[in-house]
């Protein structure tokens, strides 16, 4: 497997203060990688750094052979990385189909293949494609958000806490869909609060704390680590 994304010693933040301090991580082709860590560890910030939403003061990000450090989000989208924010990740007053259409805004020509692909992953959405996205349940909204991001056929999908606020049933469903998405050839980097479930489901994981790398390894290894268990389960 070849490396798709690698973040090397990245340092930066939103303003003057550094939130990330020399964070390194990588995602291989067709891999699901999860970032976990306590609140304020810089998990979401690390993800936003990939997407060009951060002031980077050191290190670099390489994606698929290109150094994308300092690129605009717009350019990064076109290069093949799509990002699903944690909140406000749908167009509420637009139908499901229109949400997907906006996701493919940069795509020229016929969209029917892209619609088919997304509706195949999310059959529930196809039946309700004329429904306003804002009227859907939390889990279905998350599906719309992921569907919107998949319309451009990204090579890497960034998911910021996709299961936040969802019931355990929907959490399982989102994880299952993420596997299905991966099986279509898309690598996934996600941030999760539900560390135990996420580590059990991901191929590999990173534990961040205070803006720095703390641990990395396969999900199972990390789950077996006592220090990590204490960090998340309070001993």
């Amino acid at each position, binding site marked *: 497997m070849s490396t798709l994304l690698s973040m090397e010693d990245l340092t930066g933040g939103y303003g003057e203060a550094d939130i990330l301090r020399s964070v390194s991580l990588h995602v291989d082709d067709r891999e699901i990688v999860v970032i976990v860590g306590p609140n304020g560890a810089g998990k979401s910030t690390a993800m936003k750094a990939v997407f060009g939403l951060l002031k980077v003061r050191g290190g670099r990000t390489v994606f698929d052979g290109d150094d994308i450090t300092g690129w605009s*989000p*717009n350019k990064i*989208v*076109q290069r093949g990385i799509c*990002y699903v*924010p944690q909140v*406000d*990740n*749908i*167009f*509420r*007053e*637009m139908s499901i189909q*229109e949400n997907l*259409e*906006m*996701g493919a*805004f*940069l795509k020229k020509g016929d969209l029917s293949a892209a619609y088919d692909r997304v509706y195949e992953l999310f059959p529930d959405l196809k039946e309700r494609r004329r429904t306003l996205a804002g009227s859907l349940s939390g889990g279905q909204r998350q599906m719309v958000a992921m569907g*919107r991001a998949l319309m*451009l056929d990204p090579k890497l999908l960034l998911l910021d806490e996709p299961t936040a606020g969802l019931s355990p049933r929907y959490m399982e469903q989102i994880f299952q869909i993420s596997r299905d998405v991966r099986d279509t050839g898309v690598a996934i980097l996600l941030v999760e609060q539900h560390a135990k479930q996420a580590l059990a489901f991901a191929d590999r994981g990173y534990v961040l704390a205070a803006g720095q790398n703390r641990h990395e390894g396969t999900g199972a290894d990390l789950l077996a680590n006592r220090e990590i268990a204490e960090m998340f389960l309070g001993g």
Partner: protein
Amino acid sequence: MGFLELVNFYIIPGIVLGSIYALGAVGITLIFAILRYAHLAHGDLATLGAFVAFAVVTGIGVSPYAALPVAIVATALVAVGIDKVFYEHLRERPKIITVIASLGIALMVRAVVQVIWGVDSESYVRGISRPDVYFGLRIRDREIYTVLAMLALVGALYVFLSRSKWGKAMRAMSDNPNLALLSGIDNKTVIVLTWVIAGGLCAAAGVFLGINTELKSMMGWQMLLPMFAAAILGGVGRVEGAVLGGLIVGLAEELSVLILPSEYKAATAFVILLFMLLVRPTGILRGKVL
């Protein structure tokens, strides 16, 4: 007073005035929704549009309806130009700065109109227009054209927003600007489109106000409050709401004369605005709260 008098002297003028307010309110609501500020120069842009049409009418001797497209295009271009020269530089600053800047633009536009066309009242056509009588209803041709033109322009806008790729992009930008940017929607183009549409509709409001009343350099400024009341009444960001709001405000102003001295006609819009902001700030059709 009989029913026919009520309709002839209050309802019909109310609907006509409401249609004119609606044309302006739609632009206000779009600017509110996409750019997120109250555009106080909206009324004076309408004045400019009305006088551009006046220049065409007096210059080449055509009817104001024939001059309307010229006024729409010219005002749309002026609106885009004002945005490029002034508002664009304030985009990243707090919105209140742009609101106050737009007040300055309003004064500048009005001053230009006064320098070029003077401060006296003008009209497109001289003479009295007599209403035709349809089943006891007294309706002037210009009143029919005003309402029909409003419905046609707003209808075309509605189709554009719901069917075309860029129309949907405008709705997306209004709905969730961050996500629109993450989706690669070019906000510069959306902003230019917004000004083209708002400026064009503004000119139409001004021209139809001029056709139904007279042209004065303060005509647009005096429409500003009712247009804002209409936009907020209908729900900010809702095009169909702005039309509904415009008609309600227009009717309320005309009907207020039945119970209040006519000097208070202009205050009606203010009362509606205050009442809505206190009781239901999202408007009738649930728009945004800003």
